[in-house]
């Protein structure tokens, strides 16, 4: 295959991989270690509440 054809294949692969990755992203739940280490839950004050992943 020529350089330009390889480039087209790579571009298409990127789109396909991102869509597959999207389908694998958790919907409605998350890994416990993400919840434990990356999610800040602050219930003290509604005005200041932020969940920062």
């Amino acid at each position: 295959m020529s350089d330009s054809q390889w480039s087209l294949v790579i571009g298409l692969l990127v789109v396909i991989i991102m869509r597959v990755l999207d389908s694998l992203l958790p919907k409605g739940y998350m890994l416990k270690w993400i919840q434990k280490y990356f999610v800040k839950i602050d219930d003290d004050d509604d005005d200041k509440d932020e969940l920062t992943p």
Partner: protein
Amino acid sequence: MAVGVEVPYEFMGRRMRPFSLALMLSTIVVVYQYEIIEQGPGPHGFDVAETVFASAAIFGLFFGWLLKNDDLHEWGLILAAGVWAMRMSLYWLDVGPASIGVWLSLSWFIGAVGAWLLEAFDHRWRFHLESMRAAGE
């Protein structure tokens, strides 16, 4: 409750998306390079394919924002990532890794993928984070 990161300002009643605007403009430059001044590497067939890809990305980014359609906007980000990956690989293969085009394209590629990840995270996990907090977990 705030979850994720959103710019608190609006333009024409829509969320401001400065990075998407920058990505759209840079992708328009790709179309300009290939179709108007015709200075891109690769044969004409590649130019056409890249232009179609880039036009779809521009369409998704612009109308996703205009119509407040997050799915369409996400498609714009994904297609833009594809456009920049395509451009980066062609410069690498055709001109060589010392080409500026490789590294400029890599930068925009990383930006597009990163922006898409943030959007996807926000859309997929926001509901769970909010419900988790409501349940007092």
